[in-house]
């Protein structure tokens, strides 16, 4: 291209424009620095009589749609508009929308997003509503822990309340009854040793994979954390996930849990190539009878019951002696309120509804665990077994958080770390070290 004098000028103009854009945009970024006020001016319980429209951003359905329908049925003057985003995109979209000029009134809680939103003052501090409604009494303690955050979002389990649970989940082991029978395993294993024995028997006596799994996403580290939860100290683990100062994952119990997982992989109890299998594919394989056990959460119950009928059962990961109090990992589908909304009392009334007996029925029928643990549950089959296991865990206040909750980047250490463990390229020490490094960097 020939450089004529005529072309120089636009080039200079473009350069000047670019420079101007640079300066202007830096002002734009640097000016959004005011922390919003996140405490309500006054708090009242109940729903106002005039028509109210709320917007709710969420990712998990069920249970969101059914819960919203249940609430608006009780309060016909309240209209709730739903904005669903699929899970992989939810963190980034909810961060952007909650920090926008016109945020949704309610948003499904997500620790990765709250890490930025709470310190920015964009999420409503619910302490006063909680007191007015008596939420600490209504909602189970272990489901509320992770919803308390200190002002810097550095530590969970302490500080103000920022969300209320709408439905709970619990992690456990599903099993295929006829495969267990074929392998000569008598009912669900009662101890961890018994579980390992059962895996071996399935391998020896059937064509099925003993422990179905996909480690492409979360399935791999769910086995690991289940083992850690039954082998290790509950409080030590909680401290680490919630970010208590000085907590560490490089413990004897974690080494034992990691060692158990690698041993199972080396023995061939896990499917070949599990690192490239997604969770949903692993669940489909289990439902088709290709594997005997599957570590996953209650969210799979409805689908598995539909496909396998009476063939499928559920138990909590057993401890070494089988006499330990029940413990399991779980989380909640929870909802937080924007500090920018005028209708926070109506939004809080929705959160209160989540702990009601009517909501419990909706939570149960959509495959979740009820927030109100005393809600009567008449479900049979595998659903009943999941409910029973969950009830025991809630009674013990032993519902533990998932390990990827520890820091926003932890999932990117856990997933490849477990892949390295099961393919034999990462040692147990390296794995735990990488988790602790990520933790230290986040909490320094």
């Amino acid at each position: 291209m020939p450089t004529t004098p005529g072309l120089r000028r636009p080039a200079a103009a473009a350069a000047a424009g670019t420079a101007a854009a640079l300066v202007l945009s830096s002002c734009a970024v640097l000016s959004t620095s005011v922390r919003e006020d996140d405490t309500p001016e006054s708090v009242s319980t109940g729903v106002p009589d005039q028509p109210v429209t709320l917007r709710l951003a969420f990712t998990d359905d069920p249970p969101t749609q059914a819960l919203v329908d249940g609430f608006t049925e009780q309060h016909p003057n309240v209209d709730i508009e739903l904005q669903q985003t699929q899970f992989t995109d939810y963190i980034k979209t909810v961060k952007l929308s909650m920090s926008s000029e016109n945020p949704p009134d309610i948003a499904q809680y997500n620790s990765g997003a709250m890490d930025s939103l709470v310190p920015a003052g964009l999420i409503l501090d619910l302490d006063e509503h909680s007191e007015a409604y008596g939420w600490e009494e209504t909602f189970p303690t272990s489901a509320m822990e992770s919803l308390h955050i200190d002002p810097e979002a550095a530590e969970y389990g302490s500080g103000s309340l920022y969300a209320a649970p709408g439905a709970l989940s619990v992690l456990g082991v599903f099993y295929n009854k006829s495969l267990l029978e074929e392998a000569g395993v008598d009912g669900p294993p009662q101890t961890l040793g018994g579980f390992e024995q059962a895996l071996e028997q399935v391998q020896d006596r059937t064509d099925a994979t003993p422990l179905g799994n996909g480690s492409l996403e979360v399935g791999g580290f769910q086995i690991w954390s289940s083992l850690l939860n039954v082998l290790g100290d509950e409080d030590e683990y909680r401290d680490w996930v919630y970010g208590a100062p000085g907590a560490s994952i490089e413990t004897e119990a974690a080494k034992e849990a990691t060692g158990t997982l690698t041993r199972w992989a080396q023995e061939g109890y896990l499917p070949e190539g599990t690192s490239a299998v997604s969770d949903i594919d692993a669940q489909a394989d289990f439902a088709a009878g290709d594997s005997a056990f599957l570590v996953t959460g209650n969210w799979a119950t409805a689908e598995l019951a539909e496909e396998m009928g009476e063939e499928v059962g559920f138990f909590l990961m057993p401890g070494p002696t089988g006499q330990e109090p029940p413990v399991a990992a779980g989380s909640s589908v929870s909802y937080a309120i924007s500090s920018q909304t005028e209708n926070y009392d109506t939004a809080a009334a929705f959160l209160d509804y989540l702990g009601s007996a009517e909501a419990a029925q909706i939570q149960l029928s959509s495959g979740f665990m009820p927030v109100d643990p005393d809600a009567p549950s008449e479900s049979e089959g595998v659903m009943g077994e999941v409910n029973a296991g969950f009830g025991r865990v809630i009674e013990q206040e032993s519902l533990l958080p998932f390990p990827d909750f520890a820091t926003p980047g932890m999932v990117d250490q856990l997933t490849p770390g477990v892949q390295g463990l099961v393919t034999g390229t990462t040692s147990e020490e390296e794995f735990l070290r990488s988790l602790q490094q990520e933790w230290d960097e986040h909490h320094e």
Partner: protein
Amino acid sequence: MNEGATNAPRPESRVKRRGRPGRASSGAWLYLLPAVAVYVGFLVYPAVSTLQFSFLEWDGIAPPEWGGLDNFVQAVTDPLLAEAIGNGLLLIVFFTLIPIAVGLAMTALLIGRVQRGTTFYRVVFFLPQVLPLVAVGTTWRWVYSDEGMINQFLGLVGLEGLARPWLGDEQFALAALGLIGTWTMSGLCMMLFMSGAQKVDTSLHEAAAIDGAGPVRQFLSVTLPGVRKEISIAGVITTIAALASFDLVFVTTNGGPAGATNVPALLVYRLAFNEGDIGAASALAVVLTVLVIALVSAIRYLAREDS
């Protein structure tokens, strides 16, 4: 920003320079305005913002702090980055070199005598380009799986010994991933080369044939020089696709197993959206951009016409 330009041409200069190519007039700038606005708004502005974010300590929401070159130091000292760039470079073999070779071979076969069915082959080979990579990735994950099509085929021909879960195998995952790239990029290369080869004057082929050149000689001496520009373009597009690959890796292996298929764009994504470290993610993106520009410039230099 185009104010200076619209004021620029004065009446005298307009008379003096009338009709000269390359001169801007106010009318022309007005026509350009929509395109310039879109370009600046959606390309220049985000790019400049990324550069600017790369100097900040920022989680995307809280007030940003000036971080100087910290993010760049963090980016280039991250051991994962070197590995990821290495993987990206290796992907160039599968995204660029093999597709160009396949594209040339297809062009040689389809150009000239074979007329019937050319459109059919063109559509079939170009189809992978049209499909969204997310769908492509999910399908290939099944094709490569333990009991997938490839292993079933190996079993049928008695090669069970070679069967493995390709994407779950640390040694083969990257190559398996790369071959998906080969599959998608070959059609694109073929399309480009076909259009280039069709521009070549048929009399050149006839002259070569009269001089006794066979099909191979004709291809090497007539068609190949004729598509030189297209090869350079294909090289640039596919190299960028290899180094900046994200969607395909994200849905098939997500960097696994154990980081064997990490690519730079995946690290950028994790930093920005999982960890909320916009500054470090932007710095990494800037490093990646510089790398891509360097490589693309090298390709353009090697493929230049007047050497």
